[in-house]
């Protein structure tokens, strides 16, 4: 499903002089697996997710999604891949304040050019699963942090992507909500038959995954 | 020969190509016709100076000057349907010097000759010339031939003086130069037709500072016309008209060049009976004995002279009655000259007579660059 081989990422002008965020990272996430990566802030975990999502390209090495080398893709193709196959969940939720809950969830469909009405049942179904169906018409600013992230998870799953990438999905939540949200996400991913890769700084939360890897100063330590 | 810087300034307005009559030694004089304007000539003036006094025990004494100039713009009137069409310019200068208060008043006019502003008579009547007074005044300036002399009037209500005088010639007319042909320099044709009434009994009224005085006295009149008087290198002149108590009259002029050297000089002595003797330059001498600096423009004028005519046994001390008798023009900026009454005495200070002196070309800008 997702494979890194010898991937390095250096920010800055030249390879030698820049800041190396990832150093010779190689791994494979098979289809249907739920993998957690643990690391402190600045360890390179966000970079890893960006590379996996095709948002960024590696300085060296190869990133393969669904068996395709992303570096061989044009920006347009990578965008389409992201649109159709990948769902993203962010630490800061990134909900659009000017849209209600329902429309935030439907956003990927809008992006893909679908009619919002066609997705209405799917949106409600997902919201129902996260117990927010009755809040569908609310502005997102009325929601609590946990609720917002649940909405964001619904948004990520809307178009049934095969790969879900989550960047500190609980980073902005209190402990209680963190567990709740993560469990919900894992459950949904399983139900949707998707593959999940999430990064977190919490060993406890990482423990919920099928597999936990550690990242430290850009070096992945597949425990 | 009282011509004047102002005339020169206006003279230089003229295009030289126009067909003006030159002064001629054989000019055929005709009086009284020649008292009126001679329009074929380029310039012409009637020039009066004199000493006046009131009757009574403590008479008030005045000197006066009255001049009309005619400056021809073109020999004939242009064919234009406009009252403003201009053949001549009329210029007038008038001054009264109060010898009691030592105050000198001067005024002037400059108009084109036209029915509304001033004209020259054509000889069909007594009018020789008239003009509007200076702006702001009402009483016309005028000059009439009265058969034996001239009636003249000038006023300036803003300067608060006016006079109205009637003159009667007791001598003359006297030709200045043989047949009234007055040579003004070595250059070809630099000359004018020139005659004088060197002694004219005068009576009339002078108003000054709001008071009107009945006056009597003696005037000197010059009339001169021509088309090309001054030589190019001459910048000014000293001119004397002296009336001696013994009945003789003396006219002298010295034309000065740029270096203040006498370029040309001439004179006439008129006997009590009216006989003119034309003086050669070697016959007489004039020596300035003092100077006066104008507070108006800083010009330095000679003031006080010793005049000698040895052949006539004349040795005269000429002294200005008033130091500041400078005429400063407002109409023609830069034009300034000294024109004032003088007394004539012996070296010992005994009175010999009276007269007028004119000094031109001393002020820096009295000949503006053209």
């Amino acid at each position, binding site marked *: 499903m997702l494979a890194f081989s010898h991937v390095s990422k250096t920010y800055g002008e030249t390879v030698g002089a820049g800041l190396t965020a990832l150093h010779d990272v190689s791994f494979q996430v098979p289809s249907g697996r739920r993998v957690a990566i643990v690391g402190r802030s600045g360890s390179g975990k966000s970079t890893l997710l960006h590379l996996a999502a095709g*948002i960024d390209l590696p300085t060296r090495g190869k990133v393969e999604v669904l068996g395709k080398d992303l570096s061989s893709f044009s*920006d347009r193709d990578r965008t389409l891949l*992201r*649109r159709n196959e990948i769902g993203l969940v962010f630490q800061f939720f990134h909900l659009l304040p000017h849209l209600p809950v329902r*429309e935030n969830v439907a956003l990927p469909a809008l992006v893909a050019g679908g009619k919002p009405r066609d997705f209405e049942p799917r949106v409600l179904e997902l919201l129902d699963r996260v117990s927010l169906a009755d809040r569908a018409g609310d502005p997102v*600013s009325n929601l609590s942090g946990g609720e917002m992230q649940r909405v964001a998870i619904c948004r990520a799953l809307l178009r049934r992507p095969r790969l879900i990438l989550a960047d500190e999905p609980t980073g902005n939540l209190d402990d209680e909500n963190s567990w709740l949200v993560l469990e919900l996400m894992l459950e949904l991913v399983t139900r949707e038959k998707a593959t999940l890769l999430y990064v977190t700084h919490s060993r406890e939360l990482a423990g919920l995954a099928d597999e936990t890897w550690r990242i430290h100063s850009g070096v992945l330590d597949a425990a | 020969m009282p011509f004047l810087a102002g005339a020169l300034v206006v003279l230089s307005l003229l295009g030289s190509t126009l067909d003006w009559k030159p002064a001629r030694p054989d000019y055929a004089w005709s009086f009284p016709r020649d008292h009126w304007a001679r329009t074929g000539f380029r310039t012409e003036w009637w020039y009066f100076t004199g000493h006046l006094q009131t009757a009574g025990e403590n008479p008030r004494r005045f000197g006066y000057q009255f001049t009309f100039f005619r400056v021809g713009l073109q020999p004939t009137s*242009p064919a234009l349907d406009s*009252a*403003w069409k201009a053949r001549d310019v009329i210029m007038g200068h008038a001054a009264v010097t109060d010898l009691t208060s030592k105050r000198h008043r001067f005024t002037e006019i400059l108009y084109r000759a036209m029915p509304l502003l001033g004209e020259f008579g054509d000889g069909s009547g007594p009018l020789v010339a008239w003009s509007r007074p200076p702006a702001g005044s*009402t009483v016309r300036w005028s000059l009439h031939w009265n058969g034996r002399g001239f009636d003249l009037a000038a006023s300036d209500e803003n300067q608060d003086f006016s006079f109205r005088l009637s003159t009667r010639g007791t001598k003359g007319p006297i030709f200045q130069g043989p047949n009234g042909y007055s040579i003004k320099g070595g250059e070809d044709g630099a000359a004018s037709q020139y005659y004088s009434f060197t002694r004219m009994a005068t009576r009339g009224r002078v108003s000054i500072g709001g008071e009107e005085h009945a006056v009597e006295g003696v005037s000197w009149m010059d009339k001169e016309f021509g088309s090309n008087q001054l030589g190019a290198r001459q910048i000014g002149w000293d001119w004397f008209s002296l009336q001696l108590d013994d009945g003789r009259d003396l006219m002298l002029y010295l034309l000065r060049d740029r270096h203040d050297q006498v370029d040309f000089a001439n004179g006439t002595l008129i006997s009590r009976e009216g006989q003119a003797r034309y003086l050669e330059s070697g016959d007489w001498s004039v020596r300035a004995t003092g100077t006066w600096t104008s507070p108006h423009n800083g010009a330095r004028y000679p003031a006080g002279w010793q005049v000698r005519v040895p052949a006539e046994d004349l040795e005269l001390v000429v002294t200005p009655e008033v130091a500041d008798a400078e005429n400063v023009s407002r109409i023609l900026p830069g034009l300034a000259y000294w024109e004032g009454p003088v007394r004539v005495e012996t070296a010992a200070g005994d009175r010999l007579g009276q007269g007028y002196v004119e000094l031109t070309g001393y002020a820096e800008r009295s000949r503006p660059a053209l």
Partner: protein
Amino acid sequence: MRRYLLHTLKTRLRAGRSLYLLTVLGVALGVASVLSVQIINLSAVAAFRGALRAVGSEADLTVRGLNRTLPESLFPEVLGTRGVRGAWPVYRLDVAVKGSDSLLLEVMGIDLVSPASRESLELLGREKASEGLTQPGWMAVTPELARAQGWSVGDSIEVSCGPREARLVVGALVDFARVTTLAGAKLAVMDISQVQGLLGRPGELHEIHVEAAAEDRANLKALLEQRLGSSVEVLTPTQREDEAAGLLSAFRLNLTALSLISLFVGSFVVYTSSQALLVRRRREFGVLRAVGATRAQLLGLIAFEAALVGGLGVILGTGLGYWAARANVDAVSATLTQVYLLNEITSLQVPAWVYLAGAAAGMGAALAGTLLPALDLCLSPPRSLLSSRLLQEKVGSSAISLALAGTGILTLAAVWYRFAADWRPAGFVLGVALLVAIPLFTPLLVRAASLLPLSGLGVGYGFRSLAGRWTTTVFTASSLAIAVSMMVGVTLKTSSFRETLEVWLRTSVQADIYVKTESWRGRGDETALSPELVSQLSRTEDVVAFDRYRRLTVQSGDERIFLAGVETGLPGGEARFPLVGGDPDAVYRQFRDEGAALVGETLARRRGLEPGGLLPLVTPAGKAQVPIAGIYYDYQPGTGLAVVGLETMEKLFGPGPVQSMAFYLRPGADTDKTIDRLRAAHAGESLLFRSNRKLRQEVMEIFDQTFAVTRLLQGTSLLIAVAGIILTLLVLAREESAELALYRSLGARRSQLFRIFVGKGLGMGVAGLVLGLAGGVILAGIVVFVINRAYFGWTIQVHWPWGTVLAQSATILAAAVLASLYPALAASRTPATQLSREDL
């Protein structure tokens, strides 16, 4: 703090390049429009003053005949008045130069023997002055004119004034501008005798300039008035200038109002950009506050930047304004000479205070635009500056209350006007109220956009998303709305006016051929046709009827008006004067048979004249009252116009020549052929023959020229507003970079982001357009029914120029789309990685 400021200035300026640039541009365009209009206004008045001073020196008083000229016999009277220090006669003529298309020389006849201005005599040289007195046709012209016409000293110039023709000679080139910078370039100075004799009339003068001996001008004025009688007036220089300024006041006021609108629009742009700049630096300010910077220090920092940007804008705007004035001075000048019969502008007059005022306006706009956002920033507690900014900007309730406030302002203004309708500038107050109210409706409109159904991520989505950042977008939409209001309002007014004028011309211009002399465009009443010519012309083949037109400048009440004499017996001649009201038969009967006058609407409104009333006139015989038969539509600005029959005019003012004629041809006659025949028969006689069509065309051309400057100002405002769109979208592209990154991470393609931004631009365009159209219609109403009536006294029939307004709307939307292209491109390049660094 100062060190911090200087240290970071360069970085900041570089980082916010485009924002600063557009702010500078906003200020610059505002300053430029205000400045250019003021320069033109001042130059127009100065041109008039200049002609007075060029040769007249600074006359203390001017004596002028009430019936345009005065007998020259009054000159000695003036000269002899106690307290007069000098007096100078002036004879003025406008003469047409033959062989040149439309060159009119402003000939001034003065007394070259004693010119009033010594400086001009010295410039001329005394020798030259004597040539001027003796050489036939001698004139002194400006070197500028000589250069333009290719004249040199000694050249003969054929000219005409009315039926009279003369050969003038370029005698001297004199830069009268050195005496007074205000002198017109087309001034030609001649001796008064030559002007009177060659081209004018003997016995008359136009003016006598008087220098007072004492400072007590008022006394002298009274004394002169008493001495000279009632046929003349004695004016102080202020009065003379006021006269010109008065004629132009409405014209100038209009331009000034339009330029102020540009400035207003400009300050909106400044607001938008400074807000954007400050919002981006919220954190920076938070940190500065946290480390101990005081509010005052922050305010100082912001004020310094505003001043810097304002200063640059002022510098740029000053150059631009001067250039714009230069570029437009000809059009305005043509208006002045053709419509207002004043001197043309030949040099720009820019006293220092105009620059200062322009600078003050620019700096004021820059500082005012910065004030609100700066205060907001400085008053916020440091903690709130450091934390993420408010996610949601509420559009809801505040939009409604703002709209209510707008409605309130409009209602109040309308109510106020009911009581203040008599106050002349009341219309401008209404206009200002409207322009203040328009922006208040923008939030509601923008909010309405968020009600649009959601479909796809494209133009529509962008359109709808405007509401999301309404505090940024409403200002731009508002400034566009104001610019559009102005444009639509003026378009409505102009085209209504144009249509009205066309209809009026079709009605009142009925004859087939019009004849006048070449110098007719000048100010003189001397441009007459000789009686022989009139009788010769009236016998032209195919002519079945003819009209004669005699115009005089006469005193009526406190002002000078044009009094025209026309044929009363012309069959169907009543069509020449479409009436404002009343029974046409009765009115024309009175006009034709009883010697009554028809008064132009402009004059009637200004003076409150009504049918049945009396028109006071000063005639050579003294004061007269002419009954008023009716009021007719008249569209001449400036000097008022009244019409009487030729017989009545002769009775009042004595016989005199006519200035133009109109021929009615037998049906079926060929107008063009007749004109050709006439031209051939009168070749070389300085006569102009024009067909009905040509005459109407000329009037319309003058009309269009008059509004040329207006169009420039409209364009400027629109340009500022479009700059505002670019600015706002660039701001949004920055502010929304996280949002854009989210779209990208959700798989949105660049083209989609591009379309969103085009949608936003279009959205602002539509919002501005919708409000602008509404505002424009109201504004047009105010201009046509309130301002025009108050200042010009014209009745304008409202006409809807659908086509033009549609085209303008399309242009505005196209401009909005165009303006959004660059920001859209910038937005589409937002990388998805932006997401991790910034929050939404």
